[in-house]
Every structure is written in C-alpha cells, then in structure tokens.
C-alpha cells in the first residue's frame, strides 16, 4: 500500500445513512476516533448504512451512494430486525462497526476490494437539446436544457421583482435535518418561499422500538431521556457549526449515568455562546398557540408548564418541578433541552428502585415524539418556514427535536398510518 493510501486510510471519512434504529449505531460510531463522520458524501470514502432502509428511502440512498467519489465502499450495520440494504454492502456487527469500516477502507486502498459500481445511469435527466437542427434555440434564457436540467422558472418576489424560484427537495439523508425528514421547498435566493413536509418514510418500515406500556425504573427512563435530549442538542449545534461543543455533549450522551450533572452544567456557557448568534431570535413561538399540543420541550421553552411527569407521584417524591423558560425562540429551545437533560440526570441519580409504567405519557424519547405532537411539529414547520433564510430554517427545525422514527412507532401503535 503506498504511503498516500496509508495516509488516506488512517482516519476513515464515513457518510451515515440513518435507517430504522440507526441513530444509536451512528452515535456510537461517532465516538470512535478512527472514523470521521462527515457531513457530505463528497468528503466520504465509505457509506455507512445504519439500520434497515424503509422502502421510501431506498431510491434516495442509491443516489447518495452514487454521489460518493471513487474509490468507495458500502457497509451495512443492522439495528433491529430489518435487513433492507443496498446491494453489495459489507455486513458488519454493531459491536465492532468502526474496526470493520477501517478494514474495508484498507482493503479498498490496497486494491483487494474494487470500488462499488454505480446504481444509477451516468446520464443527465433530460436531453440537452434545443429546437433548432443543431440543438440551439428554445424557450427560456439559454434555450434547451443545459446539462440536461431546465433553468428555474421565475416567480414574484417582494419589491415587485420577478426572481427565479428554485424548487428543490432536501432529502431524507440531509446532514442538518432530522433523519428521514423530506422538505419540498421553493427558494428565491436564500429565502424559503413555500415548503411542504414529505410523508414520514418510517411508517411501513420494520421499526425498532416499543410503544407498548411496560414497567421501567425511573432511572433508566430518565437516562434515556437525557441521552436523547443531549444527542438532539448536539445535532443542532453541529448544524450551527459548533462541532467541538457537540462532540463534548455526545461523549456525555454515550452513557449519562457515568457522568455527573456538574460536567453538563460546565458546558452550558459553551452551548449558549455557540448557539447565541445562529439561534437567537429565530422563530419566536407564542405560548397561546402551543397549548395542549403536547409539544414537550418546545412548549416549555415558550413558558407553558405542560409536563406529563407533573401528575406522577413517584416524580413528585423525587422533587420534580418542570423546567420552564420564557422567550420561545430557537435559542430558548436549545437551552431548554440542556436544562431538561440536567434535570433528567439529576432525577436518575436520585431515583432508587422506583419503577413506573412507561407508555405514551412518559416517553423517554421526549414527549415531542408522540403522534399528536409530531403532526403539530410538522404544521409548525410548514407555518413558520416561508420567509426564513435557509440557515434560520435549519436552525428552527433542529431546535424542534423532530424524531420521525419514534413518531412512526407511536403512529403504528395508534393504528394511524396517515402521518
């Protein structure tokens, strides 16, 4: 193996495709220093499929696979019962995913393993041809369809201008959006003009998750809640560009029970400073409009005292009081996530063998994963995104903590499939 190849395979750049149950697998992978989880397939050499791919995500997965430059390899790590994956992927076990990824990369660099072939045809989507005999002419600015793609049509913008309206679909594997979320947006410049949220692709997939009520110790429930909140916050901070703080939060999130609350409190200033300029003042939500929708931390960040744990005696015995902030903008939602994670870690440490029934009311994956709140969150996105710049739009969505997989688990349990 040449020196250059050895250098290339010292840290493997990996792009994750998060399928059913894949979030947890990817989080564990991130903690390994031999693997760098990158935010674009252009920077990756290995495509890491975490969890089975729902049917609606197979075609986008093939496109992302083809967008990785040569030489490339695909690795599949199961995270549940499903086995739907891209053809030609190497099967690895969750326990040694990072080592397997490293071995695959090394065999790729040594030439023992050939580069994965393309799935899609190497052809532009539309014929590049105008009207005339030599391919010239036609409607629009340039005539014909340059490089096989039409130019954007124009639409009215403010100040009486007609500007190009670019329609695009931010797909299910977008690095800054929640896994599985598809947004059909029409942009003018960098401002979102229209948005439609696509259907939840996890409905109809083989899901990993249990929404049936069962007894769990409070400590376990609160640890899982802290883990979910910290990972959502870390994802939001990565989207804001503050990767160092996100990495520190992820390290605590690997096992919150092994860390003290003081470690998390020490990060609060860094979180605030990191998110202040991107998230401050972005989409202030009024408390009156969020009442009764079961929106969890989103409602509590706007001043509402809604928390299903209020009515449970075991929590009252542990001294539980809902954490509430006034303000309601994206920064408040992010700080609310951090404060609730601290509270959860504290409750977990105080709880003894107190068991309680876990079901729809006490969902450790944040109350915002229940079906009612998932539909309300989608409505919030569709109501508030038009008029925002794209950066603010991504900040707002990541502050909501949308979890489509958990929403699908609850939807299926509730017998509803029209999410």
């Amino acid at each position, binding site marked *: 193996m040449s020196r*250059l190849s050895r250098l290339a395979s010292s840290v493997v750049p990996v792009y994750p495709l998060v399928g059913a149950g894949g979030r947890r697998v990817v989080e564990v992978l991130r903690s390994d220093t031999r693997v760098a989880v990158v935010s*674009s*397939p*252009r920077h990756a050499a290995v495509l890491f499929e975490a969890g089975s791919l729902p049917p609606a*995500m197979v*075609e*986008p*997965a093939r*496109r*992302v696979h*083809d*967008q*990785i*430059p*040569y*030489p490339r390899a695909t690795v599949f790590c199961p995270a549940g019962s499903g086995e739907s994956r891209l053809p030609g992927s190497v099967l690895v076990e969750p326990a040694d995913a990072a080592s397997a990824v490293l071995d695959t990369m090394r065999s790729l660099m040594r030439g023992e393993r050939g580069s994965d072939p*393309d799935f*899609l*045809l*190497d*052809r*532009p*989507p539309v014929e590049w041809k105008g009207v005339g005999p030599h391919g010239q002419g036609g409607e629009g600015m340039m005539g014909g369809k*340059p*490089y*096989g*793609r*039409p*130019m*954007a*049509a124009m639409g009215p*913008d*403010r*100040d009486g*201008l007609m*500007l*190009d*309206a*670019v*329609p*695009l*679909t*931010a*797909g*299910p*594997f*977008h*690095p800054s*959006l929640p896994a599985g979320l*598809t947004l059909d947006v029409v*942009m*003018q*410049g*960098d*401002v979102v003009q229209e948005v439609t949220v696509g259907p939840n692709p996890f409905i109809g997939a083989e899901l990993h998750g249990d929404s049936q009520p069962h007894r769990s110790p409070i400590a376990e429930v609160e640890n899982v809640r802290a883990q979910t909140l910290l990972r959502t916050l870390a994802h939001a901070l990565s989207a804001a560009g503050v990767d160092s703080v996100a990495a520190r939060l992820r390290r605590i999130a690997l096992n919150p029970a092994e860390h003290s609350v003081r470690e998390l409190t020490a990060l609060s200033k860094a979180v605030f400073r990191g998110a202040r300029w991107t998230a401050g003042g972005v989409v202030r939500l009024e408390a009156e409009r969020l009442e009764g929708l079961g929106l969890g931390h989103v409602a509590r960040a706007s001043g509402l005292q809604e928390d299903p744990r209020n009515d449970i005696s075991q929590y009252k015995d542990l001294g539980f009081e809902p954490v509430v902030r006034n303000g309601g903008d994206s920064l408040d939602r992010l700080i609310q996530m951090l404060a609730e994670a601290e509270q959860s870690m504290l409750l977990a440490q105080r709880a003894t063998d107190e068991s309680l029934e876990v079901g729809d009311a006490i969902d450790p994956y944040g109350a915002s994963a229940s079906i009612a709140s998932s539909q309300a969150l989608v409505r919030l996105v569709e109501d508030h995104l038009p008029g925002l*710049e794209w950066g603010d739009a991504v900040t707002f969505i990541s502050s909501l903590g949308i979890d489509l997989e958990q929403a699908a688990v609850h939807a299926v349990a509730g017998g509803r499939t029209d999410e």
Partner: protein
Amino acid sequence: MDLAAFLGLLVVTAGLALAIRLAGSATDPGATTASQSTPFLGGFEPPTHAWSRFHIRYYAVVLLFVVFEMEMIFMYPWAVVFVEEGIKAIVEMGMFLFILALGVLYAWREGAFKWQ
C-alpha cells in the same frame, strides 16, 4: 538586474502553478459521473439549475452609501479651504451634514438597516 529578477519571479510562479496542477492530476480519482456532478440535497435530484438571482436586500443601505459618498466628494475641496474661511465655512458644512443626518435618521426609522 531588474529584468533578471522579474524573469526569475515569472519562472518560479509559473513553475509553482504547474507543479500544483500536475499534483492535482496525479491524485485525480477519475472521471465524474452525472450523479457525482449533481448537487447533494440528501437523496433527491434538483429539478432545475440553481443559477438563480438573489434579491440584494441591503440595497437601501447601498443607496445611503452613495449619498454619503457624494457628501464626501463635496467635503474634499471644503477641507482644503475651510481653515482660511473660518467659522462661516464650518457652519455651512455643518448645515449640509445636518440635513443628510436627518435623512439617515429617517431611513433608520423606516427600517432600511434591517434587511433580514
């Protein structure tokens, strides 16, 4: 000597540029396919090109800048002579600046500096 130094600089610069170009070609992974040339959106293809025009939303600030640039032009000859002219010149320029400052305050109130 100057010519020799110039030619030497030219050779070094051209050589460096060529070396970087050759290094790029040597590590080229190969031809790019249609998928690899397409912008990454998360799994779907963009239906149109992204060659679109952006609304310059800070145009009001640009107009104000031009106004004050013209004011600056007026102040250049004034700056040369106002010491000899004395208080009268200062008062006249002060009136001119005051009127323009009123314009800025009006624009500020009307939200010209908030273009988000």
